[in-house]
C-alpha cells in the first residue's frame, strides 16, 4: 500500500470559544493551525456576554486570557475576515481554498490608538451591542478584541463606497490605512478540518404576536445581555431603549423559537435559555438600585447542568418569580409597557402588565453554515445541526472533518469547550505521524551572565504617535529618567512596539551592556510579552523587564491635565525603574515528561480516553476496580439515538484489548501516589507501579437506591437501570406488562441533593417510546416535575406524547403516593390540569433514581484534587476548563464530573485525552519563571503556605520540616508570600523589596 501523505496541520473554522479551544489544543499538541474567522476579531458570542452562569463570572475577564493566548501562539495563524470557499482532498491531505477579505488596514502598522474612529464621520449600527448603539465605519469589534487592529466596513466607508472622505488615513499616526487592499485567495494544505461556526440568535421579528419588530419594550435576551454589560450601550444601566426609563418590572418569555414547530420549525430545545434567563434576571436585579420585579414565564425550567439547580433555587430565593405558562401574545400598552393574557398552571385566565418583555430566543444555525454543510458534503439533521453519533460525537459524515460547539446541537460554553478539545483530539487522531513537522519554535540565544554586575537600566519612553505625546511632555520624562539611579540610557521613541525600535533596543542592550529595560508606554497586559521576546533576542534574561503604563493609565485618562499627567508619567517611570533595579534573572528549568497516562476507571470514559491517547501514540494504563471493563454502561440498553450500548461496549473492549498502547489492570485500585505533572508514580493495589506524566480520573458514578416509593419492598418497583437490564434480558414480565408508571426526580432536586441528574428525563422518554413501539397498547404514565429533554432530545419527548404517553406533573410538596394492596401497586398523583387525583395500578413502577457520586475522597486526597459539595470532581474552571483540574497534569472525564449522557461522556473523554496530549507531547516541560520559592532560613514549617496555595504547589518537606514549592505546579499568584508571617516564600518577579521600592517611588 502506498504511503498516504499526512499533513501536520489543521484548519479550524470559527474563532468563538469552541474554535479557540480547538485551535489551542491542536497547536499545543504539535500541529500547525490555521484559525479562520470571518469577522474582524476572534471571541465569538462569548465576547458579547456580560456574565456567565452559574458562577456569574465576568465573561470578558475569563475569555480574554484565552484571546491573548490564541493571538500570540506561534503555531496558530489567525486569518480574520476570511471565508472558506472549498474543501478538496481527503483526511490527512485536504486543500482548503480560502478568501482573505481586505481589512484596509495594514495590521503590522496599526497601533489601535483609535484616532481613526474619532474622526470617522460614518455611524453604523453596532453588531457587538446587538444594534442598540452605533459604531463607526472604521472600528474594532470590542475593546479587548484580538487581533487589536482596526478594520474598515467596506459597505459603509465613504472612501470605499464614494471615493471621498479619507479622514482616517489623514489622522492615522502610524500610516496604517490602505484603501487599496484587495481580497486574496489562498489554498491551505491541512490534514484535518474542525468546524466551529457557532449560531445566531433566533430572530423573533416574524412572530407578529410578540411585537418585537415594532415595540421598543420588547427585546431579545442577547440585546438585554448587552444592556447589562459594563461595555454595553448604557454601561450596565438597565433602561428601556424606547424611553430610557428604568423598568420596574421585567418579564422573560422562554422558548421563543425553541420547542416550537408551529411557528418556528424549531422542535429542539436550545438548552441554554432557561439558564441565561435566570442569569440575566439575577444580574438585572443586582444592577437595579430599586426593587426590580422579574418574572420568568416558562414551560419547563431546564437547569440540568452542574450547579444549575442551585442557581435556579438561588434565583427563587432572590424573589425572581417563575410562572409556568407559555405566553403567546404580547399586547403593547399606550404608556410604554406590555400586557400578557395567560392561563396559569391552575387553569385560571389572568392579565398582567410589565414594563419590559425579554424574549429568550433560541439558538439557530445560520444560513451560511447551512450552505457550508451542503457545499462540503456534510450530513445534517432536520434542524441543520451536524449529524453525529453518540459514540463519536465530534466526527462528521465526511471523514477528516470534525465539529464542535453549537454546530452539533445547542449547548452551553463548557460543553462547547469540552467538544472543542474532543474535536482537537479527533482531528489529530490520523495526523500523529506528522506531529511536529510543521510547527515552529523560537530559537533564542543563551542569556548573558549579569551576575555581580550593578544594574544598568535602559529606559524607553514611547510617544505612541500622539497618543502619549499629545498629553505628556515626553522629553521631560526622558530627562527625568536620566537622573534616576542606575539609569544608563534613556530615550524617547515614536512607537516603542515598532519593528525598528525593537531592533534598536537589541542593539543598545548589546552595545551598552544594558542589563535591565524599562519601557514607559502602554499596558503590560498587551505588550509585555513582545518586549520580553526582544530582551530574549538580545541575550538578556527576559524577566529583567518592567513597564510603566503611561498611555492607558495616564495620557488617555488625564488628557485635560497635561501637567499632572506628565508628573504621573515621571512617577510611574520612577516606580518601574525602582523595581527594575531589584529584578534578578529568573531561570526556567526543564523537567522530563513521562509520556504515559494513568487512566483511573475502565468505563466508557476511561476507555475512550485511553484509545484517543493511543491514536496519538501515547501509552496508557487503565485501572479498573471491577472484574470487567465497561462500568455502569454495562447496564444500559441503548442511547437516546437508539444505538445499542452492549454492542458498542463489546467493540470498545475488543479495540482496547487489541491496542498495544493500552494495558489494563482489573480488580485494581490506586494505592500510593507520588510526584506531580510529568512525573507521577502511582502504585496500584495489585502491586504494580506506574510511572506516568498525566492522570485522567474517570471513576464514574452510581445509580442511587431510592428510599421511597416501595423500592426494595415490592418487586414491581424498578430503577431505570434495572428496567434496562430486564429489557436487555428480554424479560417476559416486562414484555407482557400493560401499564408502566415512571416517576422522575427520585432523589434528585431535593434539598439534600440539590442537583438534576440530567439524563433521567431523556432515559424515561426513550424507554417509553421503546415500549410503545413494541407494544402500542401499553399505557405509560410519566410523573415529572420539569421535563428536561434538552437539545434535539426534545424530539423524543414529542414522539412519546404523539405515541400516547401521558405526562402528569407533580410538585415537590405533592409527590406521588405509592402503596400496595396484595400484589397490586397503587400510584396516586394529583393532576394539576384536571385538578383531580389520578389512581394508577401499574405493572411496573420505574423510578428515575438519582445518579450519585462515588465520593472518591481518598482518591481526591491522593492526587490533591477537589470534590464539590455533591461529591463530583471539581474542575479548574466551570466554564473554560471543564476537563482540567487546577492541579497541572490532572484531568477528568465522564460522570465522575457530573451525570451526562453517552455522547457527552465520549466527548469529555476525548477532551481529557486532548488536554493530556498537550502535556505528553512535550518531552521536556519548561517550568519556573514567575513562581514562588521558599527562603529556607526563614521558614518555620507552619504550613500556612501549603493551606492557602490554590494549586497544591507547596508542601512541607517532612525531612527538613520546611516548605518547598513545586515549580511545575506553581502559577505565581503570590498568596503564599503574603500569608507567611515570616516572609519565607518569595514570589519571583514580585518580591517584597521590589514592591517596596515601587511604593517608595510612588510617594
Amino acid at each position: 500500500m502506498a504511503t498516504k501523505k499526512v499533513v501536520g496541520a489543521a484548519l479550524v473554522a470559527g474563532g468563538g470559544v469552541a474554535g479557540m479551544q480547538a485551535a489551542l489544543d491542536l497547536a499545543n499538541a504539535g500541529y500547525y493551525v490555521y484559525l479562520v474567522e470571518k469577522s474582524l476579531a476572534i471571541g465569538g458570542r462569548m465576547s458579547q456576554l456580560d456574565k456567565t452562569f452559574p458562577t456569574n463570572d465576568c465573561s470578558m475577564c475569563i475569555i480574554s486570557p484565552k484571546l491573548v493566548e490564541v493571538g500570540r501562539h506561534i503555531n496558530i495563524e489567525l486569518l480574520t475576515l476570511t471565508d472558506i470557499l472549498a474543501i478538496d482532498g481527503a483526511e490527512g491531505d485536504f486543500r482548503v481554498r480560502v478568501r482573505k477579505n481586505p481589512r484596509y488596514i495594514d495590521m503590522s502598522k496599526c497601533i489601535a490608538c483609535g484616532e481613526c474612529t474619532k474622526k470617522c464621520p460614518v455611524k453604523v449600527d453596532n453588531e457587538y451591542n446587538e444594534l442598540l448603539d452605533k459604531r463607526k465605519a472604521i472600528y474594532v469589534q470590542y475593546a479587548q478584541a484580538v487581533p487589536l487592529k482596526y478594520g474598515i466596513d467596506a459597505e459603509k466607508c465613504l472612501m470605499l463606497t464614494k471615493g471621498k472622505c479619507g479622514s482616517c488615513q489623514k489622522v492615522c499616526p502610524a500610516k496604517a490605512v490602505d484603501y487599496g487592499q484587495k481580497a486574496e485567495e489562498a489554498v491551505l494544505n491541512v490534514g484535518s478540518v474542525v468546524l466551529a461556526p457557532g449560531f445566531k440568535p433566533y430572530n423573533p421579528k416574524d412572530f407578529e404576536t410578540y411585537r418585537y419588530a415594532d415595540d421598543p419594550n420588547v427585546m431579545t435576551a442577547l440585546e438585554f445581555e448587552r444592556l447589562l454589560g459594563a461595555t454595553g450601550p448604557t454601561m450596565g444601566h438597565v433602561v428601556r431603549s424606547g424611553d430610557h426609563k428604568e423598568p420596574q418590572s421585567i418579564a422573560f418569555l422562554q422558548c421563543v423559537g425553541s420547542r416550537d414547530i408551529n411557528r418556528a420549525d424549531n422542535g429542539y430545545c436550545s438548552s441554554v435559555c432557561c439558564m441565561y434567563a435566570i442569569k440575566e434576571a439575577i444580574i438585572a436585579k443586582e444592577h437595579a438600585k430599586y426593587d426590580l420585579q422579574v418574572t420568568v414565564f416558562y414551560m419547563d425550567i431546564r437547569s440540568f447542568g452542574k450547579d444549575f439547580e442551585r442557581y435556579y433555587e438561588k434565583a427563587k430565593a432572590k424573589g425572581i418569580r417563575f410562572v409556568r405558562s407559555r405566553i403567546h401574545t404580547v399586547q403593547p400598552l399606550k404608556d410604554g409597557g406590555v400586557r400578557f393574557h395567560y392561563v396559569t398552571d391552575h387553569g385560571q385566565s389572568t392579565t398582567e402588565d410589565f414594563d419590559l418583555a425579554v424574549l429568550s430566543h433560541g439558538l439557530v444555525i445560520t444560513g451560511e453554515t447551512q450552505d457550508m454543510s451542503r457545499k462540503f458534503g456534510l450530513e445534517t439533521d432536520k434542524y441543520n445541526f451536524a449529524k453525529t453519533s453518540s459514540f463519536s460525537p465530534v466526527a462528521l459524515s465526511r471523514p477528516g472533518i470534525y465539529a464542535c460547539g453549537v454546530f452539533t446541537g445547542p449547548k452551553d460554553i463548557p460543553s462547547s469547550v469540552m467538544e472543542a478539545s474532543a474535536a482537537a483530539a479527533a482531528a489529530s487522531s490520523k495526523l500523529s505521524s506528522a506531529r511536529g513537522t510543521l510547527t515552529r519554535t523560537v530559537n533564542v540565544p543563551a542569556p548573558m551572565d549579569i551576575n555581580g554586575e550593578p544594574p544598568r537600566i535602559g529606559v524607553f519612553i514611547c510617544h505612541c504617535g500622539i497618543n502619549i505625546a499629545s498629553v505628556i511632555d515626553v522629553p521631560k520624562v526622558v530627562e527625568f529618567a536620566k537622573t534616576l539611579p542606575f539609569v544608563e540610557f534613556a530615550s524617547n521613541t515614536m512607537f516603542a512596539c515598532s519593528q525598528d525600535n525593537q531592533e534598536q533596543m537589541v542593539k543598545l542592550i548589546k552595545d551598552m551592556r544594558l542589563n535591565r529595560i524599562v519601557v514607559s508606554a502602554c499596558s503590560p497586559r498587551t505588550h509585555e510579552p513582545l518586549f520580553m521576546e526582544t530582551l530574549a533576542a538580545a541575550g538578556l534574561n527576559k524577566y529583567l523587564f518592567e513597564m510603566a503604563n503611561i498611555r492607558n493609565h495616564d495620557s488617555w485618562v488625564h488628557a485635560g491635565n497635561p501637567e499632572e499627567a506628565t508628573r504621573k508619567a515621571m512617577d510611574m517611570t520612577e516606580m518601574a525603574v525602582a523595581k527594575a533595579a531589584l529584578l534578578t534573572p529568573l531561570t526556567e528549568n526543564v523537567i522530563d515528561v513521562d509520556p504515559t497516562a494513568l487512566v483511573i476507571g475502565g468505563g466508557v470514559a476511561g476507555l475512550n480516553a485511553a484509545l484517543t491517547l493511543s491514536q496519538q501514540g501515547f501509552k496508557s494504563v487503565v485501572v479498573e476496580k471491577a472484574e470487567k471493563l465497561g462500568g455502569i454502561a454495562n447496564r444500559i440498553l441503548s442511547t437516546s439515538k437508539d444505538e445499542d450500548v452492549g454492542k458498542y461496549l463489546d467493540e470498545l473492549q475488543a479495540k482496547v484489548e487489541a491496542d498495544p498502547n493500552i494495558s489494563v489492570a482489573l480488580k485494581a485500585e490506586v494505592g500510593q501516589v507520588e510526584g506531580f505533572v510529568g512525573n507521577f508514580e502511582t502504585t496500584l493495589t495489585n502491586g504494580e507501579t506506574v510511572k506516568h506524566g498525566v492522570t485522567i480520573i474517570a471513576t464514574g458514578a452510581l445509580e442511587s437506591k431510592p428510599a421511597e416509593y416501595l423500592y426494595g419492598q415490592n418487586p414491581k418497583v424498578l430503577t431505570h437501570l434495572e428496567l434496562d437490564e430486564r429489557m436487555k434480558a428480554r424479560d417476559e414480565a416486562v414484555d407482557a406488562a400493560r401499564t408502566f408508571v415512571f416517576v422522575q426526580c427520585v432523589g434528585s432536586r431535593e434539598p439534600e441533593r440539590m442537583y438534576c441528574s440530567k439524563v433521567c428525563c431523556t432515559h424515561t422518554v426513550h424507554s417509553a417510546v421503546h415500549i410503545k413501539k413494541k407494544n402500542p397498547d401499553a399505557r405509560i404514565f410519566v410523573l415529572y416535575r420539569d421535563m428536561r429533554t434538552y437539545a434535539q432530545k426534545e424530539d423524543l419527548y414529542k414522539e412519546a406524547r404523539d405515541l400516547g404517553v401521558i405526562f402528569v406533573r407533580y410538585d415537590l410538596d405533592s409527590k406521588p403516593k405509592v402503596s400496595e394492596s396484595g400484589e397490586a401497586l397503587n400510584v396516586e398523583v394529583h393532576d394539576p390540569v384536571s385538578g383531580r387525583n389520578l389512581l394508577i395500578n401499574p405493572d411496573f413502577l420505574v423510578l428515575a433514581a438519582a445518579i450519585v457520586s462515588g465520593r472518591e475522597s481518598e482518591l481526591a486526597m491522593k492526587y490533591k484534587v477537589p470534590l464539590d459539595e455533591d461529591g463530583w470532581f471539581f474542575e479548574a474552571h466551570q466554564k473554560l476548563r471543564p476537563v482540567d483540574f487546577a492541579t497541572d497534569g490532572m484531568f477528568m472525564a465522564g460522570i465522575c464530573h457530573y451525570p451526562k449522557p453517552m455522547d457527552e461522556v465520549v466527548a469529555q473523554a476525548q477532551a481529557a485525552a486532548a488536554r493530556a496530549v498537550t502535556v505528553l507531547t512535550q518531552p521536556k516541560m519548561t517550568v519556573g519563571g514567575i513562581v514562588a520559592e521558599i527562603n529556607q532560613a526563614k521558614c518555620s514549617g507552619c504550613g500556612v503556605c501549603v493551606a492557602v496555595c490554590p494549586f497544591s504547589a507547596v508542601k512541607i518537606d517532612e525531612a527538613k520540616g520546611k516548605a518547598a514549592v513545586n515549580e511545575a505546579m506553581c502559577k505565581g499568584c503570590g498568596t503564599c508570600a503574603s500569608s507567611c508571617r515570616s516572609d519565607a516564600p518569595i514570589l519571583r518577579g514580585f518580591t517584597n523589596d521590589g514592591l517596596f521600592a515601587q511604593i517608595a517611588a510612588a510617594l
Partner: protein
Amino acid sequence: MTSLPDLNQKIQSAAKRLLAEGKAEVVIGCRQGTTPMTVAPIFCRTEDDCNQLIWSNFAKINLATYLPKYPGKVAIIAKGCDARSAVGQVVEKQIERENLYIVGVACGGLVDVEQIQAREPRPIRAAEEDWATIKLSGDGWSSSLPKEDVLRRNCKTCVSRTPEGVADELIGEPTEALPADDYADLKALAGQSLEEKMAYFKGLVKNCLRCYACRNACPLCYCPVCFVDETRPQWLGKSQDEMDTFTFHLLRAFHCSGRCTSCGGCEAACPMDIKLREFNRLLDEEVQKDWNYLPGLSWDQTPPLTTYRPDDEADFIK
C-alpha cells in the same frame, strides 16, 4: 475542691509517672520563683526536679512557648491557655502530636501582681496562696486579699480554664468556663472620635521600648526571623519612631489573629506594663464574630487565615 498542696502532689506524681513510663523525656512545668509572687519554668528530667512542680496563682508564663525547643517526647503541665497554645503549635506543625503529652490542670484564674501591689503598698516579703485567697506578709504585718479581687483581666473572661477535650489526663476538678469577653469597652471606644481612638491606642504603646519581651514570651512567635528583624526590605525602622512602634504592635496583633489564646503572657512579660492585648482583642472580636473561631480547642481546626468561605463578609469592599 482539691487543696493546692494536694494538687501539687498530684502534678508531681503524674510527672514522675510519665518520666518513669517513658511517655516523656522532659516534663515542663512551674516551680516556685526565688522572690515572692513569682514562678519560674522548670524542665523536669528527674524525680527531684518533679518534686519542685507546683500550680500557682502567679504562674503567668505560657509554658507552651518552650515546647518547640524540645524535639523529643515532652509533657506539659498545662492550664487551659497553655494547653490551647500547645494545640495551636501542633496545628501549626511546630510540634508533633505524638511527642506531646498534656497534663491538664484545672485553673481558677491567675492573679495580677501589679494589682496586688497597688492594694498592698508595703514591701511584700512572702505570699501564701490557695484557691480563693492570697495571704501576704511583710516586716511585722500580714494581710489577705480575696483572689477574685485581683484576677488578671484575661482570666476574668476565660472560656477554657480547664483544658478538657485536648488534655491526655486531667488533674483537679474542672472549673467552669467564665462568660466570654464581650468587648464592651472596645465597642464603646468604636463609637468615640477618631482622635480618641488614636489617642487611646497610641497612648497604650507610647512607653514601648521595642525590647520584644512580648514576642519572646508568646507561644505563637516562633518564626526563625521575625519581621522586625528583616532587612530586605526593612519592614520597620530601627529607631524609636512612633509610627514604627505603632506598626510593630499592629502587625504583631495581626500575626496573632485567629491564633491567640488570650493567655496574657505578652502583658505579663512587658516591663512597661503595656496593655498589649488590646490590639489582639480588636482582632479576636472580629475572628469570633465573623468566623466563630476560637483557637486551640481541637486538633483538627483550620486556622481562619488559612481558609475562606465564598460568602465571607464583604461589606467593606466596593
